[in-house]
């Protein structure tokens, strides 16, 4: 018997979920009630948006302040050739609306900064970090961890991807990486290249973790960093444990992201 919140069209659209014991009408209703903020509508954000929209996540926020460039199209699959020059949030939102009218898209054409992060994140149940820079990654970790918002982390480089989930029950990103490297110490995709299909694999795992979170099924990647090597076609798992010295989730946490300078090392200011 289907849940009362699913109309006949939804029973049809989501029928392959609904017939699964582990999802069912309740799981599908949870997805339709869910709200997820995707930060970055690029390589990782594209497959995340595709699968969250298809899965019926009811509210999808998209935050990005870039415009589509032709060099993006080799991997950023929600944008098309005619979108070059348009804000990424616009073409991403268009893609989601076309795929699934059940999804309400909230467009945030803005950079994530200490000034904007609360307005962006508050109200969402889950955040997907699909960003491409350390200040945003550290800021999202710090804000989400302090605010108790679970989030997915994904990152890509050449043939390698890293992906994990931080639910608040285990470690946070800073338990693993207390500070960002100096600017330029870690190369980016623009200078070293990236295999176009790589973010498809990592972003799809991020979407999988997000869907599992709402359906409440299986084991999350919390406490496990998966490292994927597309060249070797290998997956490794690195155990990550909560760090008592972590300034965000450890024994002596900071009060707010105002205690951090989100440039260069993203270091927490000394007491």
């Amino acid at each position, binding site marked *: 018997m289907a849940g009362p919140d699913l109309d006949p069209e939804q029973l049809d659209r989501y029928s392959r979920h609904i017939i699964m014991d582990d999802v069912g009408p309740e799981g599908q209703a949870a997805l339709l009630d869910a709200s997820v903020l995707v930060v*970055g509508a*690029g*390589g*990782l*954000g594209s497959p995340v948006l595709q699968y969250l929209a298809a899965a019926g996540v009811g509210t999808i926020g998209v935050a990005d302040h870039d415009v589509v460039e032709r060099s993006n199209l080799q991997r950023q699959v929600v944008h098309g050739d005619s979108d070059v020059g348009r804000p990424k949030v616009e073409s991403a939102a268009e893609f989601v609306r076309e795929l699934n009218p059940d999804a309400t898209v909230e467009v945030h054409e803005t950079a994530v900064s200490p000034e904007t992060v609360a307005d962006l994140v508050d109200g969402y149940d889950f955040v997907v*970090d*699909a*960003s*491409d*820079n*350390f200040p945003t*990654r550290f800021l999202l970790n710090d804000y989400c961890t302090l605010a108790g918002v679970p989030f997915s982390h*994904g*990152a*890509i*480089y050449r043939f*390698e*991807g*890293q992906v994990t989930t931080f639910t608040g029950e285990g*470690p946070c990103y800073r*338990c*693993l*990486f*207390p500070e*960002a*490297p*100096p600017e330029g*110490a*870690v190369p*980016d*995709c623009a200078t070293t290249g*990236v295999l176009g299909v790589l*973010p498809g694999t990592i972003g799809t795992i991020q979407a999988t973790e997000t869907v599992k979170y709402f359906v409440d099924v299986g084991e999350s990647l919390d*406490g496990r*960093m998966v*490292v*994927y*090597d597309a060249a070797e076609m*290998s997956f*490794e798992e*690195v*155990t*990550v*444990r909560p*760090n008592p010295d972590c300034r965000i989730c450890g024994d002596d946490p900071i009060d707010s992201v105002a205690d951090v300078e989100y440039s260069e090392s993203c270091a927490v200011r000394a007491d």
Partner: protein
Amino acid sequence: MRVTVAVAGEDTREVEVEEGATYADLLDPLPYSTHEVSVLVDGRPVPEDAPVETEEVEVLRLVKGG
């Protein structure tokens, strides 16, 4: 002393260091600086300038692309 250094997503190698060597010294044979990686012991990062007190570490690279 001999330490097993497992770089996530890459090779695992045995690194020979002097007694009193630091975790940063374990990275010497690798093409990474201490800025680019976290050296983990039992799932937690160790200070790069701390003396090596384990026979096995994992090295995880910082990756930012999206």
